[in-house]
């Protein structure tokens, strides 16, 4: 008797995945019959660490949840604390926050476009798109001092101002991306070979996107017009008229396949450039922080009570942080949710009945960020079923080996 299905595990370490995650596939011939997702290999216990830190230390911890969304998590966390403690943010800071967040979106989407091309086997497109991405990394470094982990956010504002000298430099970046956008559109949306590999692949229907609570470009590519910047605007987004981008704006219809996810991300690069342009033209004057003295701010936060929710539309979708301020300096509850956490389930209908060769591009199509999703973990040496070596035992083994070699 021959078996009709076979189990194929992919991950946690696999050349087509940038981050550790296990997928257990059950396949019949070339078709995928069932999928079991097993994340958790990247747990770092970040929420747990937050229990022993004060609010201002947590901003920097939140920033390190993800290396790509390193403006999104502190943005949402600061908003949650500001809502909980009733702290207002000066208008100039609100505009600078949005400029940084949108620059981040440009770099994240172009990075993703390069990865998608790489998964399909077009490595020259990977190099070209990452070359285009360098410009936005440069401007982020000029504005914040860092290419990643910008350290810009603070409760009640931002830490660095955008000076007069910066403005012509940002305008140059805007011009650069207006030109580059046309190239991106040509390469990703007009190219027949990309279209052949991605159309009708990894389909997520409108109903599935709603039922599985998908967020960000993954949901919008299936026609769900959901975008925090549009639905519940905040900061400078409230002054603009932002529309959630769906693929029908470009192609006239919604299929919910990988190609539609490329459309949404490419169009969002253009939208981000327009948002930054608006922010520069309407940048208000004034302070950038509501309370400059950190010690005083900590005092205010220590006395404050209440709970708040902070939401931000990150490049991958909605980031939501919930903070409940308690007695003492640390929050009583801090819960961070990254977009991949919600988009995880979308993989199941996307991969059902797909071919094994489409696994990399379908997995890449939601722009997963496993590091964001797996946040919490523990180290457990005493009750582990498997034998775990302690540092002493390891050291002993190491010494023994050295002795053996010396004999």
């Amino acid at each position, binding site marked *: 008797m021959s078996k009709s299905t076979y189990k194929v595990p992919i991950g946690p370490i696999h050349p087509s995945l940038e981050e550790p995650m296990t997928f257990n596939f059950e396949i019949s011939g070339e078709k995928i019959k069932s999928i079991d997702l097993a994340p958790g290999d990247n747990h770092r216990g970040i929420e747990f660490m937050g229990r022993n830190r004060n609010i201002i230390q947590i901003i920097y911890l939140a920033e390190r949840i993800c290396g790509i969304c390193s403006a999104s998590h502190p943005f949402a966390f600061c908003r949650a604390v500001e809502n909980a403690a009733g702290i207002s943010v000066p208008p100039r800071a609100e505009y600078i926050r949005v400029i940084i967040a949108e620059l981040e979106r440009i770099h994240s989407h172009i990075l993703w476009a390069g990865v998608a091309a790489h998964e399909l086997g077009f490595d020259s497109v990977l190099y070209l798109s990452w070359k285009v991405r360098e410009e936005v990394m440069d401007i982020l470094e000029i504005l914040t001092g860092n290419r990643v982990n910008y350290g810009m956010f603070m409760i009640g504002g931002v830490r660095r101002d955008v000076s007069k000298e910066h403005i012509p430099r940002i305008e140059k970046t805007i011009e650069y991306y207006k030109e580059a956008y046309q190239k991106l559109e040509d390469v990703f949306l007009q190219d027949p070979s990309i279209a052949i590999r991605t159309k009708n692949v990894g389909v997520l229907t409108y109903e599935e996107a709603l*039922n599985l609570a998908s*967020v960000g470009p993954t949901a919008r590519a299936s026609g769900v017009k959901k975008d925090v910047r549009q639905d519940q605007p905040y*900061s400078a987004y409230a*002054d603009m008229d932002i529309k959630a981008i769906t693929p029908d704006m470009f192609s006239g219809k919604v299929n919910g396949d990988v190609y539609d996810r490329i459309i949404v991300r490419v169009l969002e690069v253009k939208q981000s450039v327009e948002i930054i342009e608006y922010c520069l033209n309407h940048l208000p004057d004034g302070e950038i922080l509501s309370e400059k003295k950190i010690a005083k701010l900590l005092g205010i936060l220590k006395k404050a009570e209440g709970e708040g929710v902070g939401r931000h539309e990150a490049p991958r979708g909605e980031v939501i942080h919930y903070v409940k301020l308690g007695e003492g300096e640390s929050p009583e509850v801090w819960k961070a949710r990254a977009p991949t956490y919600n988009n995880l389930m979308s993989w199941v209908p996307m991969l059902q009945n797909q071919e094994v060769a489409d696994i990399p591009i379908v997995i890449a199509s939601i722009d997963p960020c496993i590091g964001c999703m797996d946040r919490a973990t*523990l180290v457990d040496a005493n009750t582990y079923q498997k034998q775990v070596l302690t540092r002493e035992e390891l050291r002993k083994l190491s010494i023994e080996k050295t002795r053996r070699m010396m004999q």
Partner: protein
Amino acid sequence: MNPKELLSFLKKNLKESILDSRIDTNKAGIKQEEFFNVWLEVGQNKFRDTVKLLASLQYPHIAIIAGNDTGESIDLLYLFSIYYGEKFKEISVNIKVSLDRKKPSISTITDLIPGAQTTERETKEMFGVEFVGLPDMHNIFLPEDFPKNVFPFRKNEKGLDELVQNES
């Protein structure tokens, strides 16, 4: 429906099962336009009905369940939002349910909103909350061989303290 109408709609249907409620008004932008957070606390047995009522208005989006071990009870805060699609129309609905700490148990909502599965599984692992009706699946974030009676996000006994590797 605006937030006040939403709250009175829920109050009309759930009556005294709503233990506590408030509407937070936040302002955004130079024009200081308003958006709303509706906070509710409902009785454990009426939680499913509350979600069903929300679903009768528009399919609710669930963001996450934030758990809190207060020492006396396990409080779950479900972060929902409804009315997406138009500027300033979305309302965040945050529903708190307080569970008995000795045997925390609540019915699942994965049959109403399948997308709640990940967060229910996480809450089950981290806080030891039983979700009645949730299929028994493997651990999602904790290792498979993690002890079944230890819940790391509880704050004292059966929490992390006894598990943390000593520094020696």
